[in-house]
């Protein structure tokens, strides 16, 4: 009897399973999904679906190559909300959309300006979206333009853009934000998110390639404005996000117009709130080490004074970037993107308790003192510049 029972238990294991079986070649791999809304407030989804057979390098031995067509196809769909738009894809696709391998979510500028809350709800609710997917605001063109970029080292635009983003992330020259980070920021008191920005570059009205520079400043789920490359860097300096990036001076120590490039090898920053009665101010301290990589003039780096003045110039440059950024977010867009309020809350919770309801009014006028300390570490292989005689 026991054995029969055990047999049934074992057999019952085999009754489950199979129901969610999907052969890998029956899936439509989505790499690159974009969401936007149009004039009629209808939700649009654009997806780039891969055609694996056209992608494989070695399929059919030598016969492939030129004969293989485009490795991807772009589909768009409309609906009253994103879920409806998404399910509408079923009407025109033979395979099931498979989103697990997607790592970037493109947000159209219209959607960003009118608020991405509904999209955020859709993508965080659906397990197929990776929470580590990058969020990117697309400016300078439509999503359709983006999906059809022609200039690419990679086989399809998505891969090109992903490479771009990861590159920028490694060199910390543009702001990279993923779903997790966005949601986290949104749920932190009085801190406003920033999202990376992809700018489509057109030539003769046709989208050609994209640049991943700058960022978009959000107030809650709505985009309030675009930040330039320098402003974004300024924010990243304050956020302690700079790891290695380049720094270009456009004037020399003697005030001459020249270009001197450095690469940052190590950087850290801190924001310290200061409270003086009702008066709140912040100290931003930035330290970084750099190496020289190029100069157009012939400054001699064996001269200690010269090093000192180059460090000085670097400090000025970084400071101006930071101030530029502060100007944009504090005065122009009035969003606390670097989380000054949060720093205050951490250090002076009581003061914060009193101020937090009025923070939106206080913030634009808060004083921020920026001090930068640069150290020039190495000059590359040449210490004395090459001297033509």
């Amino acid at each position: 009897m026991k054995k029969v029972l055990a047999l049934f238990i074992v057999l019952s294991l085999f009754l489950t399973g199979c129901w969610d079986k999907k052969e890998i070649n029956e899936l439509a791999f989505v790499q690159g999904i974009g969401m936007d809304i149009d004039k009629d407030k209808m939700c649009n989804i654009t997806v780039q679906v891969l055609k694996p057979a056209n992608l494989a390098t070695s399929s059919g031995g030598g016969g492939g190559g030129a004969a293989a067509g485009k490795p991807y196809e772009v589909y768009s769909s409309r609906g009253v909300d994103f879920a409806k738009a998404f399910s509408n894809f079923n009407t025109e696709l033979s395979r099931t959309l498979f989103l697990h391998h997607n790592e970037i979510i493109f947000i159209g500028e219209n959607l960003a300006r009118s608020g991405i809350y509904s999209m955020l709800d859709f993508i965080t609710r659906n397990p197929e979206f990776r929470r580590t997917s990058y969020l990117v605001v697309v400016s300078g063109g439509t999503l359709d333009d983006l999906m059809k970029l022609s200039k690419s080292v990679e086989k399809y635009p998505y891969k090109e853009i992903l490479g771009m983003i990861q590159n920028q992330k490694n060199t910390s020259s543009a702001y990279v934000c993923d779903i997790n980070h966005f949601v986290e920021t949104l749920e932190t008191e009085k801190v406003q998110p920033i999202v990376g920005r992809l700018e489509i570059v057109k030539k003769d009205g046709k989208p050609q390639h994209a640049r991943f520079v700058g960022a978009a400043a959000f107030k809650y789920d709505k985009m309030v404005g675009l930040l330039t490359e320098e402003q974004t860097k300024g924010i990243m300096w304050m956020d302690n996000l700079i790891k290695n990036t380049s720094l270009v001076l456009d004037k020399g120590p003697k005030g001459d117009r020249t270009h001197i490039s450095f690469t940052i090898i190590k950087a850290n920053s801190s924001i310290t709130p200061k409270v003086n009665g009702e008066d709140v101010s912040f100290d931003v301290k930035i330290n970084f080490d750099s190496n020289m990589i190029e100069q157009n003039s012939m400054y001699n780096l064996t001269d200690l004074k010269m090093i000192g003045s180059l460090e000085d110039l670097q400090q000025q440059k970084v400071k101006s970037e930071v101030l530029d950024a502060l100007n944009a977010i504090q005065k122009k867009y009035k969003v606390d993107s670097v989380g000054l309020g949060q720093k205050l809350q951490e250090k002076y919770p009581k003061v914060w308790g009193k101020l937090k309801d009025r923070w939106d009014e206080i913030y634009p006028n808060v004083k921020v003192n920026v001090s930068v300390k640069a150290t020039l570490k190495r000059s590359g292989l040449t210490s004395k510049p090459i001297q033509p005689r």
Partner: protein
Amino acid sequence: MDRTYLIENYKDMSLYDDIDKNLDVLKTLLKQNSDVIFREFRIGEKKVKGFLVCVDGLVDKALINNNIMEPITLESRKLDDSYLSKKNVYESLLNYFITTADIKEEEKFGSVVESILDGDTPVFVDGVDKSIIISTKGWEQRNVSESTTEAVVRGPKEAFVETLRVNTSMLRRRIKNPNFIIESLKVGKYTKTDVAVAYIKDVAKDEVVEKVKKRLNKIDIDGIIDSGYLEELIEDNPFSPFPQIEHSERPDKIAAELLEGRVAIISDGSPEVLVVPTIFVQFFQSSEDYYERYYISTLFRVLRLAAMLMSLTLPSIYVAAVTYHQEMIPSPLAISIAAQREGVPFTTLMEAFLMEFFFEILREAGIRLPMQVGQAVSIVGALVIGQAAVQAGLVSAATVIVVALTGIASFSIPAFNIAITFRLLRFAMLIIGGTLGFFGIIMALMMILAHLASLESFGVPYLSPIAPGNTRELNDVFIRIPWWVKIFRPHKVAGRNVKRQNYTRG
């Protein structure tokens, strides 16, 4: 005399003092056999009747001629009657004439017949109800040759042969200690196979030795042809797919295991010697591990364990990932697999199952065929299955790679018997992986693990020293510590004498 009566009763019959009666009984029992030789002779001046019986082919003829027949027939005539009166001729034979060392006396027909069939030669003399049994074993046998199934690069090359005595001698030559004991018994009603139980007293646990002897004595089978019979008859859990008794044809390995306190069971007619108690990790230890540098041995052990896991789970993980968990495959790989599977008519499970199936057929065919043909088979198999099937779009290249990797992984497990267990379980895993996904694979692995943990081999838990854990003994599981720090024998295995050496280096 009536043959049927004799067959039933000869075992307990005592020898007669009348030589004709003895001859009559033996002739009735054995005369039909064309290979049995009866040689009658007269001893000395008094012409005392005598005879000997031996089996042609089992005996060393030169030994019989020179050391038995010659003294009895020629030398005896040079002596006077005092030695060769009818009364004391038997004593004289025993004490002076027969010039071989290994002789004994028997009084029962049973043991006489047994010794004849064993290759010994009994000599009968008129008027005595006893017989002198002279050990004259000497048959054609395979020479001691290099081990074929457990080849090593470094280490002794010789392997056991089919003759028990040769095998015990190889062990005795390695362990020269009076405490090294080789007890023997006979198993099998018809085959009367000699089975020797070898152990080092005090190093081996007495309970284990007793248990081995008890289980061997309980066997009531008509014949033992190979030690594999014994293994199945005495192992703890006969229903388990896992072997619970290790076997080896390498005397160095068996000697080393005797030194660890294990008990060897040597069966005549089989070059494979059994060792108990056996633990799981033993199957992943090659004797070479202990001869090569310990860093390398450690690496190889980890490698083998990885290969074991691969050979068990790789196809199932592949199938489960491709049909259920596509999100777990890195994107470029997923796309590449999808591209390869484009146009393949089978489901991934079916595909993998078929490939595994063909691979097993190929392997089986390769083993059975003569060497020259075997090579042709593997070439055809590799070409047909590997190349043509992929090009024809019948299977995807990824599946072929997975199956091939699995095959190679299973070959890298040193013990063939556990490798085939994993081969068997692999098919079950494959089906579970293809129907239940990763969930099923984990469930199946847990079941296998639970089963392994429940096994025991002669009182020693199968998974020890991992579970139940013993951190000190883990030094010979995943790693191999150098000999100069290997101070203790495995506690669970060894008896009273646990210490191997004091901490010294030459």
